[in-house]
C-alpha cells in the first residue's frame, strides 16, 4: 500500500511517498505564487522520479500553509500534527520538535506515541523564521545555503538587538557600513534568531531528545546557535525539510487502513 504526503510551505513544496511503513522517496520544489500548481507539480514529479503510478497511491494527506489548496488530497492536516508524526516515524524516541520553516517557527511536545501534547508558534512577527534568514542573506550578499557555514567561522559574533525583521535588517546594514566581518554579522543573526525560537521551546518545556525540522534545520550555524540556547544537542537528519510531508504520508496510510 502506497500513500502520499504533500506539504505546501510558504517557500517550498514537499512530497513524500510511504509504502507499508517504509519511506520510498521525497522531493522538494519551490512553491512559487500558485499553491494549487505547486501541489500538483511536486506530486507528479515525485511519482515520475519513483516510477509509481498515480492509481497506486491509496491516500493523500496535505499539510502546510497551503494545505487547503491541494484539491486531490483526501484530507488536510496541520503541519504541527504532521511534523509530530513524521518525527516519531523517523525516530520514536523523539519527545520534542523545533520546526523552523519559511514563515513560522514552532516548538512541539510529543508523548511516547507521537501525539502532540503542547505546542507554541511565533505570532508577533517573522523574526526567527526562514524568511528572516532569507532577508538577511540578501542584505549580506551571501547564498542562503552558505549562510550556516560562513557564520560558523566567526570568532566574535556581532550583537543584533532588534527583534523585528525590518529593524534587524537596517541594523545589519549599518553593521555592513561599519565594515564588520560578514561571518560575525551572520553569527549574530543566527544567535538572535535562535534566541527567539528557544523562547518557544522553553514555553512548551521541550526536553532532550528533540529533533529540528523544517528548511532552516539545514543551516548548521542556526542549529548550533539553537543548541547553545537550549543547552542540549538537536537531532536532525537529511530529511528535516521533508519531515512534514513524511508525517502527512504516514497519516495518509493510517487513514487508508482506517477506511
Amino acid at each position, binding site marked *: 500500500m502506497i500513500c502520499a504526503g504533500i506539504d505546501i510551505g510558504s517557500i517550498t513544496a514537499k512530497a513524500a511517498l510511504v509504502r507499508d511503513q517504509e519511506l520510498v522517496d521525497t522531493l522538494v520544489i519551490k512553491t512559487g505564487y500558485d499553491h494549487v500548481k505547486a501541489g500538483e507539480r511536486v506530486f507528479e514529479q515525485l511519482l515520475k522520479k519513483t516510477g509509481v503510478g498515480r492509481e497506486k497511491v491509496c491516500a493523500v494527506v496535505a499539510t502546510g500553509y497551503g494545505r487547503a489548496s491541494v484539491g486531490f488530497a483526501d484530507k488536510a492536516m496541520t*503541519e504541527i*500534527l504532521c511534523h509530530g508524526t513524521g518525527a516519531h516515524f523517523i525516530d520514536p524516541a523523539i519527545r520534542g520538535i523545533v520546526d523552523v520553516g519559511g514563515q513560522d517557527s514552532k516548538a512541539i511536545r510529543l508523548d511516547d506515541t507521537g501525539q502532540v501534547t*503542547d*505546542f507554541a*508558534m511565533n*505570532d508577533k512577527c517573522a523574526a526567527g523564521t526562514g524568511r528572516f534568514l532569507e532577508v538577511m542573506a540578501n542584505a549580506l550578499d551571501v547564498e542562503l545555503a552558505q549562510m550556516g557555514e560562513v557564520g560558523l567561522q566567526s570568532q566574535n559574533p556581532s550583537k543584533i538587538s532588534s527583534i523585528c525583521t525590518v529593524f534587524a535588517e537596517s541594523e545589519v546594514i549599518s553593521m555592513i557600513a561599519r565594515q564588520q566581518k560578514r561571518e560575525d554579522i551572520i553569527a549574530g543573526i543566527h544567535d538572535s534568531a535562535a534566541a527567539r525560537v528557544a523562547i518557544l521551546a522553553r514555553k512548551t518545556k521541550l526536553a532532550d531528545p528533540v529533533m529540528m525540522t523544517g528548511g532552516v534545520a539545514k543551516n548548521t550555524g542556526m542549529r548550533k546557535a539553537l543548541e547553545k540556547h537550549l543547552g542540549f544537542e538537536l537531532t536532525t537528519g537529511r530529511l528535516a525539510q521533508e519531515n512534514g510531508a513524511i508525517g502527512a504520508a504516514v497519516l495518509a496510510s493510517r487513514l487508508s487502513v482506517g477506511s
Partner: protein
Amino acid sequence: MLTTEQMQPFNDAVNDPLSAETASKEREIIGTLCTYAPEELIWAAGFHPMRLFSSKSDIVLAENHLQAYCCSLVRGILEDSLAGRLDFLTGTVFPHTCDSMQRLSDIWRLKGKYKFFADVVLPVKLNTPSARTYMLDILNTFRTELEAAGGRPILEQDLHEAIHLFNRIRRSLRALYDIKSQNPSIISGADLYTLVKGSMIMDKVQAADRLEQLVSTLMPVDTPENDTGRVILSGSVCDSAAYYQVIESADVQVVADDLCTGQRWFDGEIEDQIDPMAAIADRYMDRMICPAKHSDLTIRGEHLASLAKKHRAGGVVFLLLKFCDPHAFDYPYLKEFLETRGIKTLRIEVDEQQDNAGQITTRIETFAHMI
C-alpha cells in the same frame, strides 16, 4: 437553528448601532467601554448605555496619541472617535480597569468631544469589606453625575426597573448559553456572538423582549450530544464571528466562555429585594473578575477549571488581544493551573485590525486533535 428573521435585529445592531429598528427612540446614548460600567444606573438616569466596539478601520488619527504597543481595541475606538464615527454619543463612561483604558480616558477627556464624561474609579481589590463600602460610594457619586446630566433625580423606582430589565437580559443570555452547551448544534457560535454583541448595543427593552422570544422558540433536545471537541473561550473581547467559524470548522464547539463580550457581562443577577444601590454594588463586587481586578489569587484559574468541568470541556482557548498586559500577565499561571488539572490550553493572539486566519486555523485544528 435560529432563522434569519430572528437574527435580523441583532445583526442590524451589530452592523449599524443606530439602525432604526433597534436604536432607542427617546434615549440619548452613553457609550461604555467595559463590562464594569454600571449600565443599570445609566439606564435608570434615562440614557441608553451602548457598548462601544472598534469598527476595525485602519489606524490613522489615533496613531498620534496611542503607540502601536497599545491594544488594537483601545486604538480602534479612539480612531472611531477622532474620525467622527461616534458623534452620535452624548457621553462616555470609563470604569477604572487596565492602563490602556485609563490613557484612552485621559485622551478622550482632553479632546472633550462629547457632552458627558465620567471616570468611574472602581476599587481594584474586590475581596475586602472596605472595598464594598468604597464601591457603593463610587456608584453613588456616579449616580449624582448622571442625575446632573439627565436633569432629573434617579428614583428608587427607576433603579428597580433598570435592575429588572438587565436581569431579564442576563437570564435570557444564560438560557441561550445553557442550550448551546447542551446541544451545540442548535445555535452556531457566530449567532451566539451576534446575540450577545447585539444585546450590548441595542435598546435594552428591545434586547430583553427579543431575547425572551428567542429562548421560548429554542427547545433543547433531551439526548446530549457527544463530548468531543468542547472548549471554553477565555480573554477580553472576542469581536469577530470569524473566530467561532474557524473553531467550528475544526469540529470544535465553544460551550462556555470567560469573555468581556460573554459571560463576564451577563453572569449573575442583581438581587431585587434589597436596597437597589447596595444590590448593584454587590453584583459588580461578586461577578467573575477580569485580570485588571484582584480578588482571590487563583480565582480565575478555579473559575475556568469549574467551567470546564461543568460543561465537559477538554480545553480552554485563550483568545488574547496583542499587547493586552493584564491578560498576558495571567496567562502563564492559568496555563499551568489548568494543565495540572488535565485541561489542555491554547493561546491565540489577535489584532482587531489584522486578519491572520491562516495561522489561527492551524492552531485550532491542531488543538482539536489534542483535546
